């Protein structure tokens, strides 16, 4: 078989749809993982030992096991316990829990990197602990965490490819689907490679622009 541009041309609309879904899934999982990661990181700042230990257990368990196995546990394993989720919900929750474990660690480091003087200054101006967290600590922690969170988002975009294994539709799934039907594996997977590069470079570019703005604003 010789190289067929036609196969790529015909597959392109479907592939682009897949790329769009990859971005939507990544954005949704990242937003959820940011919220979850922040909440868990804040909880880890509490003084109770048991809570800290639980947070640590969550973070280490999800960071030190393969995402693929986590996806399989949610999709194939949980129904055995009576919890049956669709491929979409299974994929989304596994991606979210996995990414949130990394985000927790990043936020925790960010919160701890906020200088102690900030805390003393905030309290001495009469802010309550809650006001201090919302107006002083968290904004600074987010700024400190931004580059690491950005790297995490880039990893997430690539990691979404794993949910194709449980039938969640995104770019990798679409590439499998097309090449399974027309046998143009070289062209279609090649096109998917290029699309992923475009997605990742776009996300990286946006992150870099945002980062320089955020950092400038901080000066």
């Amino acid at each position, binding site marked *: *078989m010789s*190289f067929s541009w036609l196969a790529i041309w015909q597959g392109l609309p479907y592939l682009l749809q897949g790329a769009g879904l990859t971005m939507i899934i990544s954005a949704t999982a990242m937003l959820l993982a940011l919220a979850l990661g922040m909440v868990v990181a804040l909880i880890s700042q509490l003084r109770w030992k048991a809570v800290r230990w639980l947070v640590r257990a969550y973070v*280490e*368990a999800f*960071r*030190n*096991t*393969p*995402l*693929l*196995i*986590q996806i*399989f*546990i949610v999709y*194939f*394993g*949980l129904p*055995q*316990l009576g919890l049956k989720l669709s491929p979409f919900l299974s994929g989304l929750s596994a991606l979210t829990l996995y990414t949130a474990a990394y985000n927790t660690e990043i936020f925790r480091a960010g919160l701890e990197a906020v200088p102690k003087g900030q805390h003393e200054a905030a309290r001495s101006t009469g802010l309550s602990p809650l006001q201090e967290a919302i107006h002083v600590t968290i904004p600074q922690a987010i700024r400190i965490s931004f580059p690491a969170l950005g790297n995490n988002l880039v990893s997430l975009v*690539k*990691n*979404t*490819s*794993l949910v*194709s*294994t449980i039938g969640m539709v995104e770019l*990798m799934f679409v*590439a*499998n689907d097309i*090449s399974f039907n027309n*046998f*143009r*594996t*070289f*062209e*279609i*997977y*090649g096109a*998917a*490679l290029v699309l*992923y*590069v475009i997605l*990742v*470079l776009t996300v990286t570019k946006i992150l870099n622009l945002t980062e320089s703005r955020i950092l400038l604003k901080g000066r």
Partner: protein
Amino acid sequence: MNLSVVVENLPYLLRGTVSTVEISAAVILLGTLAGVLAGLLRFVPWVAARTGVAWIVEFIRAVPLLLQIFFIFFGLPAIGVKIPTFPAAVLAMSLWMMANTAEVVRGGIQSIPRGQTEAARSTGLSGIQTMRHVIFPQAIRRMLPPFVGLCTILIKDTSLAAIIGVFELTRAAQETIERTFRSFEIYLVAAAIYFCLSYPLSLLAEQAEARLQRQ
């Protein structure tokens, strides 16, 4: 939960674990050698080599490993390059390891102040001697924590080889589940085994990082 299923099938899962460790070791060895070479190529005086390596590294790092594996295993045969499952998976993962190690090496070398190079060159050392005796020995300490981190990611990512049918821990778990239908227990045990492989390395990376911060 059915513990007897776990106990009965543990030996099979452990056979898969041995394969996972073997694949990881092979990939880490191949990928690291290639990666150190590629990382050093970023500092040679030839622009073509520098940019070529930079492009390859960027490209590999921008694509999902799963797609790389599929491209090599399903895509290349369409243009006449047939590679069996095991070498295909090892090749794809080694390329991944190479690209990421190259970035670690580049970052480590660039973190060494320029004055070191200038001082070394002014004492009469050649470019290669400077790299070998002055820059690299200092940079390697800074490379260590991210490199160990890479190894833990790689060990977890060897699970992707199961999707094209390579026998390792995840594949062993899948085959066990096909026989026993106890997916929850078996995947949980597989996860626990991966944890035992990955966590000690994570701790090592953390310690190396902490030691570096204290200096």
